[in-house]
């Protein structure tokens, strides 16, 4: 079942002094972060701290202006296409086509990931089951679905790709209990299959049940890091401005 093609213990995400500019604004201002295979990392921090940009960077969607950035063993300043194929990114947009049905969307994204007919069908079936989507719901066009149903459809369209790295931006926001449970089971399933998960979320209690490592981001740098396993505090590599804070934790 495991789909990753690198040795255990190798960093999936390895950022040193990463700077990302949105226009002229440094959304990430020299961020350091190292994530190992199979970890579940919760990114927390105030709005505008750079959490979403960090996820975009890890997906290979934005180019670092400075720093060293390696994801899944690839240097993102050079090779991003290979990384992109192996990550799944959930953002505020669902990435679905409104006029197609949920089933058609999931199928399209499976085929777009390069899967053949039969492979696409079987993977779609298992993703649909995992997220609790039934046939009645699958045959409706996306514009006739509720926000929670769309989110689950969107996650299913990502799950068919069996990514090595999940990047989830506020996956629980605006969902009912069914939806939240579906997200949690998806994350557990991904981790048990050997994938790595980065979740940016404000819903700490929800994500804590997955016993993640908690990384706090503020002003484009990491200011606090609970370390692997979620228990111990380890000093984060941050500029002087931040070290005082990290020690307080």
């Amino acid at each position, binding site marked *: 079942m495991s789909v990753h093609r690198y040795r255990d213990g190798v960093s999936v995400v390895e950022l040193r002094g990463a700077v990302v500019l*949105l*226009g002229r604004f440094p959304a990430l201002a020299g961020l350091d972060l190292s994530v190992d295979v199979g970890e579940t990392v919760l990114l927390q921090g*105030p709005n505008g701290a750079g959490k979403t940009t960090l996820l975009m960077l890890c997906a290979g969607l934005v180019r670092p202006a400075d720093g060293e950035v390696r994801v899944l063993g690839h240097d993102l300043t050079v090779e991003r296409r290979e990384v992109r194929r192996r990550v799944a990114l959930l953002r505020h947009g669902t990435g679905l086509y409104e006029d197609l049905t949920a089933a058609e969307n999931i199928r399209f994204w499976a085929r777009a990931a390069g899967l053949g007919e039969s492979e696409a069908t079987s993977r779609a079936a298992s993703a649909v089951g995992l997220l609790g989507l039934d046939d009645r719901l699958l045959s409706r066009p996306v514009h006739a679905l509720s926000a929670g149903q769309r989110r689950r459809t969107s996650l299913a369209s990502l799950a068919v790709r069996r990514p090595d790295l999940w990047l989830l931006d*506020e996956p629980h*926001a605006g969902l009912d209990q069914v939806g939240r449970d579906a997200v949690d089971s998806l994350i557990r399933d991904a981790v048990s299959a050997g994938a790595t998960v980065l979740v940016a979320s*404000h819903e*700490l209690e929800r994500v804590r049940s997955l016993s993640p490592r908690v990384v706090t981001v*503020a002003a484009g740098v990491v200011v606090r890091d609970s370390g692997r396993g979620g228990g111990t505090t380890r000093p984060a590599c941050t500029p002087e401005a*931040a070290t005082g*804070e990290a020690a307080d934790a």
Partner: protein
Amino acid sequence: MTGRRDTTGSAGSRLLGVSALVGVAVLLLFAFVLTDPDVRVHPTTGEEFGQFDAVRLLYLHVPMAVLTYAAYILCAAASVGYLVRRTPWWDVTAYAAAEVGTVFCGLVLVTGSIWGRPVWNTWWEWGDVRLMTTLVLFLLFLGYLALRRTTVDPRHQARRAAVVALVAVLDIPLVNRSVEWWENRTLHQQSTLAELKIQDLTLFTLMLGFVVFGLVAAWLLLHRFRVGWLEQAAAEHGVAMAIAERHAELDMPDVDAAVGDAGDGP
């Protein structure tokens, strides 16, 4: 060398600027005083005909037209350079060439129209190949400059602009072909000089026009490049300061509160 440091001038550019200004003065002298008007005598009727003094627009219009095309070709070449090398130097060069080229192109259209009125008896001639090609080129590069003025990540913009410049210049032969076949007529001299009563001095003045407007274009290009380079440098400087500002945000008291419990809503 004045040693002033608050301008985009340098010793070289000042020399260039002064020669361009002197050149314009000399060119005016040649174009208006030393050369004769175009007056030809009909071999049988003895009637006088020709462009008379309107021919003096030749020394202005033709060099600028050639320089327009040169500037746009430079722009396309620099755009290719940018797409290959991806360094700001090429991007700034392409932008500078496009802007200077468009100023020249606009003037070519205006002076051409002014020249056409007395000589062709019309302000505008649909179907004239060079006129229509130049007009389409002008419109294409207005689009290019509009794209340049949209606010977007500078790297995206450089790439988009490079593609637009490339398409624009590749489009030119097609526009030219299509207009040529469209209305098989042109009012432009087949060879500009063949029809005129050519004197050595006319030819010399035209060549002088090429040199002088070439100097003017070079000076404009140099300064436009430096302005573009400064814009980039200023932006980079601004980014360094913005990063410092972001780090300073961490010292502010409200960040600590927000970090402490991040449950401050979506």
